[in-house]
């Protein structure tokens, strides 16, 4: 008994339990994080893999064609000694025919399951996927190919041409007509400015007339482009296909409406991988479609990265200067301690409060004043007096400034007193000492602050929703029109995208994998930004902390 208690006491004194406790705590948090990443990745990465299409005959005589999403136990099926039962969720797509994309079927209802070779998966620009069998291809209403395998061959011949035409159409709509609209708007505002500012009416009329002539020229150009577009659209409208869906219903659609068509039951592994990568690249580089539930997220990636960079540019100098005063110049005492506590607590204010502040102060007050002073011709439609990437970045800079201040202060405090005294003893002033010795030495710590601020800022959504993020932004905040950076524009953001697609889209079930994919991408981007900053910091550190000092 006594020996046992001594053994226990020694075990306790040795510190081993504490090692287990601390190690366990670390392991637990690591497991949670890894589990989160694994769940997100598992759900996300399978999304683009082209699965096989199964045709199932049911006991009631009906048929379905779709991809298996999940198979699970029927809840409560084991009760009362009955055998375990399973049910399967199929993605049957064809939203425009059936009304819903998904269908649950009890496994005991399924009579046969086959994988028809000629089942086709159509990815469409609108209405989601279409599963079915191609029956015929028509040109101007005349059947030009019918039945297997002629229709499929004809389709493959025509389809790339229609997509090229479609690309031309988009090019004209977005770039060329976009430029025309941009110029028309510019001229319209110029006329308003003249009418408001020019005191001499004769001269005003003269100048307005000149501008109106220019407007007429742009308008004519617009007519030309519109004609061009009509020709292209007519060209694409000539070709149509008819698809027979499971259950015998037929659907007719233009060839141009199809993004990609594949025979998923005939694909080899290599071909599947190729399609997977194509879809992945499309996801990263293309614009979204179908109210963000399909297509890519490029504008959101661009908006996120640009906002984080803008925020860093603003928050780092501001935070560092504030910390310098607090640590180096201010007389250390009760007041400075109080300020420090206040700054630390600022980090605990709910982010939505910062958003509201940004809306009130930056957008309404600052932006409103800028509009009245510099853009009066555009009023009442606001230029800066509405949400935009500049205001969103500023709001986030405000939100993350405590992080930078705290990190900078700590790194300033860590500069050895001997360095400061050595510099001062050589006749350097305090400012010279700070500039040449203290700040370079504190740089790695300052970068740590920046890394933390970026991680915090990139993951923040709530304040952005009221300061400039939108579901779909027609233009990027950076383009080829002078002055290239359009900081007043609204933008898209991956964090908001997750919320929007996951909870606001009309077809949540179909969009679910998209949410996981976007989450994975956001985590990846934050990781990438941080790794860059960490790389820079380590290079600085090895330069500073070298040798035995």
């Amino acid at each position, binding site marked *: 008994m006594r020996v046992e208690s001594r053994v226990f006491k020694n075990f306790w004194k040795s510190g081993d339990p504490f090692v287990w406790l601390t190690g366990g705590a670390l392991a637990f948090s690591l497991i949670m994080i890894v589990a989160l990443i694994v769940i997100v990745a598992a759900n996300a990465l399978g999304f683009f893999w082209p699965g096989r299409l199964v045709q199932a005959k049911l006991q009631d005589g009906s048929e379905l064609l779709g991809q298996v999403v999940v198979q699970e136990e029927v809840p409560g099926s084991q009760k009362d000694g009955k055998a375990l039962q399973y049910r399967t969720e199929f993605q049957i797509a064809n939203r425009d025919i059936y009304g819903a994309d998904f269908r649950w079927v009890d496994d005991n209802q399924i009579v046969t399951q086959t994988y028809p070779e000629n089942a086709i998966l159509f990815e469409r620009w609108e209405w989601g996927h279409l599963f079915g069998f191609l029956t015929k291809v028509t040109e101007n209403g005349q059947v030009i190919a019918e039945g297997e395998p002629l229709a499929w061959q004809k389709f493959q011949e025509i389809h790339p041409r229609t997509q090229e035409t479609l690309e031309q159409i988009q090019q004209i709509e977005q770039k060329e007509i976009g430029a025309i609209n941009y110029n028309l708007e510019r001229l319209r505002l110029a006329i308003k400015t003249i009418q408001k500012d020019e005191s001499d009416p004769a001269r005003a009329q003269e100048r307005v007339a000149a501008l109106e002539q220019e407007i007429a020229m742009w308008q004519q150009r617009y007519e030309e482009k519109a004609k061009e577009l009509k020709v292209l659209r007519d060209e694409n409208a000539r070709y149509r296909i008819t698809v027979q869906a499971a259950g015998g219903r037929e659907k007719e659609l233009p060839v141009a409406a199809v993004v990609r068509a594949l025979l998923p039951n005939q694909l080899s592994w290599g071909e599947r991988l190729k399609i997977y990568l194509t879809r992945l690249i499309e996801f990263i580089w293309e614009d979204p479609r179908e109210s963000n539930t399909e297509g890519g997220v490029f504008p959101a990636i661009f908006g996120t990265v640009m906002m984080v960079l803008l925020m860093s540019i603003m928050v780092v100098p501001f935070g560092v200067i504030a910390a310098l005063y607090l640590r180096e110049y201010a007389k250390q005492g009760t007041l400075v301690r109080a300020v420090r506590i206040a700054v630390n607590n600022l980090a605990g204010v709910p982010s939505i409060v910062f958003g509201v502040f940004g809306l009130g102060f930056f957008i309404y007050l600052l932006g409103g004043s800028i509009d009245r002073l510099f853009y009066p011709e555009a009023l009442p439609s606001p230029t800066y007096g509405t949400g935009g990437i500049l205001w969103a970045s500023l709001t986030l800079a405000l939100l993350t400034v405590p992080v930078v201040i705290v990190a900078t202060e700590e790194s300033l405090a860590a500069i050895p007193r*001997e360095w400061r*005294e*050595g*510099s001062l*003893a*050589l006749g350097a*002033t305090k400012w*010279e000492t700070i500039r040449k010795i203290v700040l370079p030495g504190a740089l790695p710590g300052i970068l740590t602050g920046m890394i933390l601020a970026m991680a915090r800022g990139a993951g923040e959504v709530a304040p952005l929703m009221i300061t400039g993020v939108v579901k779909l932004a027609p233009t990027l905040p950076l383009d080829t029109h002078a002055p290239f950076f359009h900081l007043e524009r609204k933008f898209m953001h991956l964090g908001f995208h997750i919320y929007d697609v996951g909870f606001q889209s009309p077809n949540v079930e179909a969009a679910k994998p998209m949410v996981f994919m976007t989450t994975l991408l956001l985590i990846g981007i934050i990781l990438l930004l941080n790794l860059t900053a960490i790389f820079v910091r380590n290079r600085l550190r090895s330069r*500073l902390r*070298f040798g035995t000092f």
Partner: protein
Amino acid sequence: MEKEWSHPTHAVSLPHLAKQGNGKDPSLGAAVEIAEIQIRDVCLFYGSKQALHHINMNIGRREVTAFIGPSGCGKSTLLRCLNRLNDLVDATKVTGSIRIGGTEILDPTLDITELRKRVGMVFQKPNPFPKTIYENVAYGPRILGVRHKSQLDEIVERSLRAAALWDEVKERLHDNALALSGGQHQRLCIARTIAVEPEVVLMDEPCSALDPIATTKIEELIHELKQHYTIVIVTHNMQQAARVSDYTAFMYLGRLVEFGKTDKLFTTPEKQETEDYITGRFG
């Protein structure tokens, strides 16, 4: 007696030239030949605690003066009064008068950076900056506005030679200074200090962090530097004080107990406390 602040042995003169008055005052205990530093009735308070009590002392020009005494006796504090580094400590108050080369340095309107250019300091813990060897030595001259590369090169080489470090580092002037050894660090700090050509070099226990061989090198260096600079050294090591200094001041509890020629103080001390301390009976 008027004399120039720059040293004729140095080829490059720096832009800080000040005038100096007479420093001779035979009335004090140790009759130094030419007094560079005159300390009169200096008291120092940290808040309400008095750390120095009415110190009076003349420190000779181009002599080595050692401050010895037990820990906490105020010798480092007195040393730091000479370049006003105590100003960095909040709530410090100094009364009395310290004249260096005739200039009253306790004058609150004095340009402290100007003073510190004239009174250099080597610290207890070697404190090279995290920069290259070259940049460490060029730091002071750059602060003083020396911009020309050739001029800086010359100052760096001359200072490193004077600190007996040139031969060891001339191949790697642009390597990080922190990669040097402890003894080299301290000699680099000495080179850095003399690069701005001060008149006075203060050394605060410069060998306490070094091994015996590095210590010997620094002591030899002090001997060399004596020809151009007035050196004030604080040390815990009485053998060292005996080896390197011309004059020694023994301090105890914030008071100057005895001050005189080193050989006299160590062989025939006047005060009992001094004798007790140097024979190791306390301290």
